[in-house]
């Protein structure tokens, strides 16, 4: 995910470096020139016959069946030679341990273990939010991650390594600590919680919007509810302004989040940032919506102006109110409403006026 975030593969390809994805889903996407649609199962949108077609074409396997076992075995054979011969591997990391300087990779397939064991040189790219204070903190995070991501008690393989171990694994190790907007996200408390994310994807599995649209609709490396708050912040709100709206605010994501990121709260905060940015954009000043909202703001914040507006509004509306007490048609913008439905005429008094008069009348008449 991290390498996709910084568009590493296209950059390396342009520099003449051939890269091979090693995760089964990622090979499917790479060979099929496709994009991920889920954090944990990135090729969720590709079915077995499509995978068969991609593998048969790119690996030269004419007689490949579309049985997932056969497809997985094909990928195993295809990659084993690559693992044994390619001198450099690039990995991400799930956690970094400050106390020991260790890197932790959590996985199921074993491609991670291959990458961090066989090549001569290892390069790890990790976001700075992955740092845990102590080794012991893994006792919490490892249990939480596996259970929220795949529902397993523990994922099949977890690897911990600390720099270079003579005689075991890569003898050159580089780690790139990636900021890319993360330190900026620390500034405000609401947005800061985004950095707690451990990429388990529980939020997208629970999200009614994600389940309808799939991951591609988000148009961002990180899809789903977490992507809707993470991507706009990483991109400094410049692109991806519609993402904070890709939610019904039902809160299902917050409910399942193991690290308790209040995603709806962050979504609302980002929406307000989008609006603030937008209404200060030239050309938006006379936009009917913003004009209307400015007028409403003026009226609602001054009681005398509000009462005056009510008074004149009531007089004005009388011209449109029929004898039956209903408004059947309004001019201009209001006509859009009355085209399809009637509107009840305004009452003779406001509630406040009625309340003030109430005690002055004999009981029984105050209706």
């Amino acid at each position, binding site marked *: 995910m991290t390498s996709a975030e910084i568009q590493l593969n296209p950059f390396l390809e342009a520099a003449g470096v051939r890269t091979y994805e090693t*995760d*089964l*889903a990622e090979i*499917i996407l790479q060979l099929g020139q496709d994009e991920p649609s889920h954090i944990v*199962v*990135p090729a*969720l949108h*590709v*079915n*077995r016959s499509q995978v068969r077609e991609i593998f048969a074409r790119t690996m030269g396997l004419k007689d490949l069946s579309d049985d*997932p*076992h056969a*497809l*997985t075995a094909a*990928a*195993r054979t295809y990659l*084993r030679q690559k693992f*044994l011969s390619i001198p450099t591997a690039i990995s991400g990391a799930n956690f970094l*341990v400050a*106390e*020991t300087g*260790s890197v932790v990779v959590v996985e*199921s*397939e*074993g*491609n991670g*273990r*291959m990458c961090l*064991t*066989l090549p001569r040189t290892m390069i790890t790219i990790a976001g*700075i939010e992955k740092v845990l204070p102590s*080794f*012991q903190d893994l*006792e*919490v995070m*490892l*249990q939480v991650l*596996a259970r929220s991501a795949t529902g*397993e*008690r*523990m*994922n*099949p*393989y*977890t*690897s*911990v*390594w*600390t*720099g270079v*171990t003579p*005689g*075991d*694994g890569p003898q050159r190790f580089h780690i790139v*600590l990636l*900021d890319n907007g993360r*330190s*900026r996200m*620390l*500034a405000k408390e609401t947005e800061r919680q985004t950095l707690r994310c451990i990429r388990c994807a529980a939020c997208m599995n629970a999200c009614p919007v994600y389940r309808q649209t799939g991951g591609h609709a988000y148009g961002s490396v990180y899809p789903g509810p977490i992507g809707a708050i993470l991507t706009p912040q990483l991109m400094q709100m410049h692109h991806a302004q519609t993402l904070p709206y890709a939610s019904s605010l039902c809160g299902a994501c917050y409910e399942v989040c193991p690290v308790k990121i209040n995603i709806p709260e962050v979504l609302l905060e980002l929406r307000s940032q989008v609006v603030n940015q937008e209404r200060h954009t030239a050309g938006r000043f006379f936009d009917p919506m913003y004009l209307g909202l400015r007028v409403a703001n003026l009226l609602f914040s001054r009681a005398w102006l509000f009462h005056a507006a009510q008074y004149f509004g009531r007089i004005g509306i009388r011209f449109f109110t029929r004898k039956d007490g209903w408004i059947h048609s309004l001019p201009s913008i209001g006509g859009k409403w009355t085209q399809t439905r009637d509107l009840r005429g305004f009452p003779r008094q406001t509630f406040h006026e009625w309340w003030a008069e109430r005690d002055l009348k004999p009981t029984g008449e105050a209706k």
Partner: protein
Amino acid sequence: MNAPTQSRQQILDRIRANTRSVAAEHLESAYATLPRTYVRTGSLSAEARLALMIERLREYDAEVVECAPQDLPSTIAAQLQSSGKRIFIAPAGLPASWLALGFDWRIDRDLSSAEIELAEGVVTAAFCAVADSGTIVLHHSATEGRRVVTLLPDWHLCILYASQVVETLPEYFSRCQNPPMLATYISGPSATADIEMTRIKGVHGPRFLHVIVVHDHADQPKNQ
């Protein structure tokens, strides 16, 4: 200043500026007093704990046999025999009595990846095991082998002593007085669900895991 140093300084400066509201000493005490009310210590008896470990391993399709300490060499030999394989890797520190006669042993003294790839199986010890999740923990000592030897061969026989089995993951962490430089936690065989969410075993790591559980003395894990 070169570019990496400069970036590092910029990042650190930004982090400091953006977390100024939280005093460093306050953070430290907040971390020290974090509520850790999750299950840390198990509640099972030694036998129940071991039974849970074996149940979990079998759920993962591992083949589990149990034996007494004195029967270990013969049990290893029987397992190797029934595997139908001949070429096995042994980590350099594996006890000589575990190297059953009649097999082609390749002692790992800096074997190349290509040589390890040619082997059919590997026999190792373990550091610890966690019953709750059926996890085998390797710290890659001389008896547990380098990381590569438990990765390339398709068949892995792991010798686990009953006294090495703890119930919960936090109990493993409290057994690590010194955090390991290298560690691998294995919970079942390599697996994927990347194609149509169908779970398939054996993408890259060993497809066959065999475990011999040795009932050593009291069957009691050493309490830290």
